[in-house]
């Protein structure tokens, strides 16, 4: 009938079903073992399932600075936000970019949303803190032991070593005049010429200087002594220590901080914050018309002006380094100018040792915080653990019901064949689960509600592939073939259909993943993953198993419960010898032609 000439062409594709099965078995075992070894036996849960707060920030592209929203700046912002959030003692907060201009901040439960938003928010964590002590970044081992109660000695030493152009306190007089000029240009000029906090934006290249911790502990109470000990031990050249320094310290408490002076790391012991960054109304780097040098001018609001006047008044009376204040941004000391007179009136300028880049950078940091971009909150979602658990449960129940319905439908319709489909689904489920669990650690994949949804929807897609194959086999049997050739002949065609339709499905998932943000991505990811796994399972599991089972009597004899009973399928007799049949009814020929 159909193709007498082709007949029962032995297909090479029958191949080695054992090998394919071995491959997928090994893959499953490897993934499962990997899962246990890495102790990631459950997928990481997203905020909406585990509870917590999720904040989506969008980078605002400012007019004239459209190019600012780029990968480098986004990554810098992520780093800073991460530090801010984790700096408050919340571990495992997760900050990542998504798409071109979004940052997602996920904060697990245990932190209230308001606090989280303040941390993440668009305002900078900028403080002006008086310097109590300064030392080189690495702990000086011998001195470390003695340093708990150092005396205010050798304050001249660092200054003297300040070999290159900076020389902080050498400039006060000259800059006092320039200051008045700069102010009158900048903002509203104060009546009295305001003296400068002439800065030592110390580009100390030769920083062998000043290892002597030159602090004077004013009141050696236990907390201060403890802090002193910590200060002595602190190693700012160590990245891990740097990341943790000053973590969780309130602005009103003394703290430790690291910062870079040129190439070298320095460490500071700092007093309580005297002025906050939000009190800085504006700041910018500009050229002092008087000296032609780059300087940074700052303008405080009323509250800031008062506080600044007070602290500079106190500092001016002290000696190096305690006449300095540190500008601490997100835990890092970004500048530590010294003060020679009280600065009143709300305007100040930092001079000395700037180039255009460093002056503008500092100005930007003072006005906008360290974030290279400004962000707006697009959405803030707070999910309590209770609701998260409920959503997870609902998702799992829905998945179970969906799976059950599919299984029942397959059983009723395909009988024995359905078991192949069910086991295939199971294999697919195991692969999906283990991969998801491993990806939690690997790429930070977190299972969220849409992802669960995607997995449930994927049950259908996966089962569809089996249906396509089964229907093909049945068609071949209807043509009068016996099961073994039918299984092999049906495969190339079913394979094509499966590949094409899975490709379309995967394409949709990939496009979704690339162009969307947030929750949608989770969904697209699961859908894409399961579509890929579907192909893997059909090729390496379903087909080989089908080939093997075609050799069993139950299936090959077309047992009524096998789902392949030629009679039920309405196959044309004679069943076993498809070669005969010269006068086959036409339709089939058309189909096959």
């Amino acid at each position, binding site marked *: 009938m159909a193709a007498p000439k082709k007949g029962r062409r032995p297909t090479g594709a029958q191949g080695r079903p054992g090998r394919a099965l071995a491959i997928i078995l090994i893959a499953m075992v490897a993934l499962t073992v990997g899962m246990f070894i890495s102790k990631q036996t459950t997928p990481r849960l997203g905020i909406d399932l585990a509870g917590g707060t999720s904040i989506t920030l969008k980078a605002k592209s400012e007019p004239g600075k459209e190019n600012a929203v780029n990968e480098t700046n986004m990554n810098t912002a992520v780093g800073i936000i991460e530090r801010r959030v984790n700096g408050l003692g919340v571990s495992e907060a997760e900050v990542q970019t998504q798409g071109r201009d979004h940052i997602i901040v996920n904060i697990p439960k245990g932190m209230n949303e308001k606090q989280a938003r303040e941390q993440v928010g668009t305002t900078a964590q900028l403080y002006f803190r008086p310097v109590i002590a300064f030392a080189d970044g690495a702990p000086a081992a011998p001195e470390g032991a003695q340093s708990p109660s150092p005396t205010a000695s050798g304050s001249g030493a660092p200054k003297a070593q300040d070999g290159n152009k900076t020389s902080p306190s050498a400039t006060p007089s000259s800059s006092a005049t320039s200051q008045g000029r700069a102010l009158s240009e900048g903002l509203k000029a104060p009546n009295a010429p305001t003296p400068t906090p002439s800065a030592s934006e110390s580009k100390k290249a030769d920083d062998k200087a000043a290892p002597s911790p030159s602090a004077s502990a004013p009141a050696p109470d236990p907390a201060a002594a403890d802090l002193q000990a910590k200060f002595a031990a602190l190693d700012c050249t160590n990245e891990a220590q740097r990341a943790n320094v000053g973590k969780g310290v309130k602005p009103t408490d003394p703290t430790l901080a690291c910062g870079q002076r040129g190439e070298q790391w320095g460490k500071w012991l700092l007093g309580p914050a005297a002025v906050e960054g939000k009190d800085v109304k504006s700041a910018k780097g500009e050229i002092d018309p008087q000296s032609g040098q780059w300087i940074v001018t700052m303008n405080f609001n009323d509250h800031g002006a008062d506080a600044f006047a007070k602290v500079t008044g106190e500092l001016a009376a002290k000696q190096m380094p305690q006449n300095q204040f540190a500008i601490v941004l997100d835990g890092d000391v970004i500048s530590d100018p010294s003060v020679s007179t009280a600065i009143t009136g709300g305007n100040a300028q930092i001079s000395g040792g700037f180039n255009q880049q460093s002056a503008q950078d500092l100005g930007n940091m003072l006005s906008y915080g360290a974030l290279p971009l400004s962000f707006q909150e697009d*959405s803030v979602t*707070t*999910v309590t653990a209770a609701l998260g658990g409920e959503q997870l449960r609902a998702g799992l129940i829905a998945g179970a019901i969906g799976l059950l*319905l599919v299984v029942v439908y397959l059983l009723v319709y395909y009988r024995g064949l359905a078991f192949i489909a069910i086991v295939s689904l199971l294999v697919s489920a195991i692969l999906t689960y283990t991969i998801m669990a491993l990806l939690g650690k690997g790429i930070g994949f977190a299972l969220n509600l849409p992802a669960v949804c995607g997995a449930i929807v994927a049950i259908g897609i996966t089962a569809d592939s089996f249906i396509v194959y089964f229907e093909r086999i049945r068609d071949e049997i209807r043509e009068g073939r016996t099961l073994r050739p039918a299984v092999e002949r049906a495969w190339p065609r079913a394979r094509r259909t499966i590949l094409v339709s899975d490709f379309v499905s995967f394409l949709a998932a990939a496009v979704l993943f690339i162009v969307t943000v947030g929750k949608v991505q989770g969904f697209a990811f699961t859908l894409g993953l399961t579509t890929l796994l579907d192909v893997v399972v059909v090729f390496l599991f379903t087909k080989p198993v089908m080939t093997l089972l075609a050799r069993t009597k139950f299936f090959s004899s077309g047992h009524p419960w096998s789902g392949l009973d030629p009679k039920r399928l309405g196959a044309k007799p004679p069943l076993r010898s498809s070669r005969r049949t010269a006068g086959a009814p036409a339709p089939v020929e058309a189909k096959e032609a």
Partner: protein
Amino acid sequence: MSKLGDLGAKLYRGEVGYDFVGKRFLWYGVSILITITAIVALAVQGLNMGIEFKGGAVFTTPKTTSSVAKVTEDAEKASGHDAIVQELGTGGMRIQISGLDTDAAADVKKELATDLKVTEADINADLVGPSWGEQIANKAWTGLGVFMVLVVIYLAIAFEWRMAVAALIALIHDLTITVGVYALVGFEVTPGTVIGLLTILGYSLYDTVVVFDGLKEGSKDITKQTRYTFSEIANRSINGTLVRSINTTVVALLPVAALLFIGGGFLGAGMLNDISLSLFVGLAAGAYSSIFIATPLVVDLKEREPAMKALKKRVLAKRASAAAKGESADDAIGSGDEPQVVSQGRQQPGRRR
């Protein structure tokens, strides 16, 4: 089931079959009607955009003793904006306040906690800036555009451009219907809905591809025979793959239905519900369109080809001569579609690929 199996066999052999291609104008009509209804509903009623698209806040509280009316009043007093309050299956309240600034939301949350006598930490909050939904929608549009271009290119390569065009039309048809249902029924449109809608893209095409694959195979050597016209073969292909299409659709719909049931019944509202609702509508539309719209469209496009026209002439000539000889014409295809097939002769010469 064995009856269904029988039907499958009969469909496969072409003993029974519905004349999808012959009656295509009827179904085109039905689809156009539905599409127009959808567009009118969209124009007149518009979509009920969720809070995510307008900006505002959604608070979900744990079980409370307050009534909906009381909570609404509290929420409106606290926020100064209109509030929509729903009671959930859990006994909690879902409070939607549109237009609420994300900054002000924290205070409102605090007040609500006091009013409802629950702790602030127990209230779930979803604060959305006014541009968030717009961004999601924009990205969805971008995704839609990119996907359509890619898929048309792919289908044009894997099949042929006619099928790609037909698949695209079917896809747009499905999306329009789904959006129309949303407008008509007034379901809330949320980012979840958009996710569902975008997933329809893949799914609707999945179905179409399965049918097209059968069609492509059936019409492989079509010019080498003189028994059937393209329309007839297409119709046979649809019928031959009908069981497959029905099964894949049912199996795809079952988990979605479970999601919808659980999402709607258990959680009251939310992401599960939103995704599955749009998926459900879209899937159903997709199954319909791949059979009733996509393939007949391919036929319309294909029958313009000179080769297919020539084929039809040969087939009809052969049938005529067979009839003249008194032999019975082919029994396979319901001859009811014959006039339909003939009537296509009027079409102007098409391009040849």
